[in-house]
């Protein structure tokens, strides 16, 4: 059952938007959930967050960064082409209710999954303070969309080309220290960023939620590839998460496990690039 690509667009260098026609999934999707896709019969199953969905049109929207073989291949596909497999909605929906004031932190491609949550928190009657960060101004995602659903929006770049020169955690810390009452923090981005946010909010005892991106295969709780340690208990991120209490997550283990296939990933990417450029190695 192939799934048609409705739209593909490069948002900023290396980060792409893709809409897939998947009416059955769109009917059930909620913020915080993800899909697993496979491009073709030889392809790997990779998880991507459902960045947005349109129930009426039956469309699932994803934002992904081309980091390796599969995401790079995905970025070369065009509207009208098809994906072989598209499975979801997987994982638990985000817990969205009225908390009071919430800080939404999105780093890099993590801005995409933060957006529907920020919108939902806003609609649930919360005051939404958003902080989005990127390495550099040209890599910053969705400033306008985030602005539209936030009461306050802060921007940070590692190189100072836009907004605050530094990390998203600098702003989180400033807000917490300023005495503003914060009821919840949601942070999605690279594991190092999520760990840093958890470290900043911990002394203030503010409930902090992160979305874990461990390596997955089936996404249904069958293989245990995605296991993470939360509060010293082994959990399967695909069915028990992907969202967890940041203060209980063992981020070191997460990062170690994410590096499990580095040599193989490098090999796969080199082979892919080589084939695309038509060399004979």
């Amino acid at each position, binding site marked *: *059952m192939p799934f048609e690509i409705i739209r593909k667009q490069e948002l900023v260098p290396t980060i792409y938007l893709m809409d897939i026609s998947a009416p*059955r*999934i769109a009917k*059930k999707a909620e913020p915080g959930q993800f899909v697993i896709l*496979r491009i073709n019969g*030889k*392809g*790997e*199953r990779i998880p991507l967050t459902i960045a947005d969905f349109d129930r009426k049109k039956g469309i699932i929207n994803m934002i992904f960064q081309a980091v390796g*073989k*599969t995401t790079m291949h995905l970025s070369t596909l065009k509207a009208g082409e098809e994906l*072989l*497999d*598209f*499975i*979801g*909605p*997987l994982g638990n929906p985000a817990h969205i209710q009225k908390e009071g004031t919430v800080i939404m932190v999105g780093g890099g491609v993590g801005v995409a999954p933060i957006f529907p949550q920020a919108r939902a928190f806003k609609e649930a009657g919360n005051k939404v303070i958003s902080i989005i960060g990127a390495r550099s101004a040209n890599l910053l995602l969705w400033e306008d969309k985030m602005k539209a659903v936030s009461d306050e929006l802060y921007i940070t770049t590692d190189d100072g080309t836009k907004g605050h020169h530094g990390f998203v955690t600098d702003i989180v810390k400033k807000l917490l220290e300023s005495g503003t009452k914060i009821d919840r923090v949601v942070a999605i981005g690279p594991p190092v960023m999520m760990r840093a946010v958890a470290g900043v909010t911990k002394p203030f005892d503010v409930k902090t939620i992160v979305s874990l991106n461990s390596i997955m*295969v*089936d*996404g*249904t*709780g*069958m*293989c*245990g*590839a995605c*296991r993470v*340690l939360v509060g010293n208990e*082994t959990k399967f991120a695909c*069915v028990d998460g992907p969202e967890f209490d940041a203060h209980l997550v063992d981020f070191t*283990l997460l990062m*170690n*496990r994410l*590096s*499990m*296939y580095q040599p*193989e*990933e490098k*090999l*796969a990417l080199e*082979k892919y690039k080589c084939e695309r450029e038509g060399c004979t190695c």
Partner: protein
Amino acid sequence: MLERQKMPEQDPKVRRTNFKEVALGFTEKQAIDEAARCLQCKKPKCVEGCPVEVKIPVFIKHIANGDFDSAIKEIKVDNALPAICGRVCPQETQCEASCILNKKGTSVSIGRLERFVADMEKDHGTREKPHSSGKKVAIVGSGPAGLTAAADLAKTGHSVTIFEALHAAGGVLTYGIPEFRLPKKIVETDVEYVKKLGVTLLLDSVIGKLETVDDLLMQFDAVFLGTGAGLPVFLNIDGENLNGVYSANEFLTRVNLMKSFLFPDHDTPIRKGKNVVVVGGGNVAMDSARCALRLGADNVTIVYRRGEKELPARAEEIEHAKEEGIKFRLLTNPVRIIGDAKNWVTHIECINMYLCEPDGSGRCKPMPLAGSEHRIEADVIIIAIGTSPNPLVPRTTGGLEITKQGTVVARKDGATTKTGVYAGGDAVTGSATVISAMGAGKKAARAIDEYLKNMPVA
């Protein structure tokens, strides 16, 4: 009397380096000779030993007469997946254990004969479509239980749709049992046969997420749950989350479903170990060990806490594993897994065990021998100590009674505590066998048919 025919096999030295099928199958002459050994008992004990009661002497007689077509037709009355069962049934504890000749240890090779005629079959039977009953049944899971229930319900005229979570059908037959024991072509052929009966197969459909069982009940008249027992059990010892430690499910899924033995031609990677330790003694452990060997390991060791006699795997698999050079450390149990600074596994620490009086399961209880701790070097460890049912469906279905072990409570005929919902196979019994799952699918199909007959047409 003729001797039991020997199965032609790939040489162990050769086959340990490839994923091609180990057992090559009888020749026509061998099959006819083997069939001639059957005494055609008036009260055939063998049939009682088969969970789906294949009419064994009848089909064997057809083979003896060289009429392979009639033989396969006869088998298919009771068993929709003979090419599979002939390969993976634990015959030595089922049909062949009950064969009268087994008293002398030379039972008829029923399974191999079943495999032979199934492989000979060219026409995989498109049947006339039966008269439509106007009733719709949803099957969750496409393992042997789901496929059998689907086939039987389609044959009685119901409109059947299978919902499968993965991107390929077959359940454990596809993602668990390796190519060298059960070629995927064979599973595909049998799945095609079920589809030809008119069954709709929807892959990539995770029930409990995409649709709940209650959603299905709005669109279908009955639901059968054949969701298996796919949740991996871990040892709960230190070091189990180190890089290089796999559940057998993950390891086998990468190898079989994702074809990582063909990496990088296929995209999914797998860690190829030099020194691989597999924990467990069942079919799953044997399959994991033999896959690891074929991926290129120098040493593969099976660590099992009981003795040789207690190994639950099929006799043939244990024998094959030994021939291929897999080492067995019996009466040994892991206590912790040790890693390096980069989170990679380096050793597994084990303790010797001894057996004392039988426990609840009737088997001897293994006890640790104090002071016998020792380490085995390992860069890949595969935990194959069992699975329990996946909670996805139970968690999202109201009114479905579940045991403490996570299995679905069902009567003998498959009826659950929820009206219109039936279940069978590993989801009900916990990990068992292909043929028992098929038997459960068959019984449930009969019960569902009864249930639907007593229901007014909408």
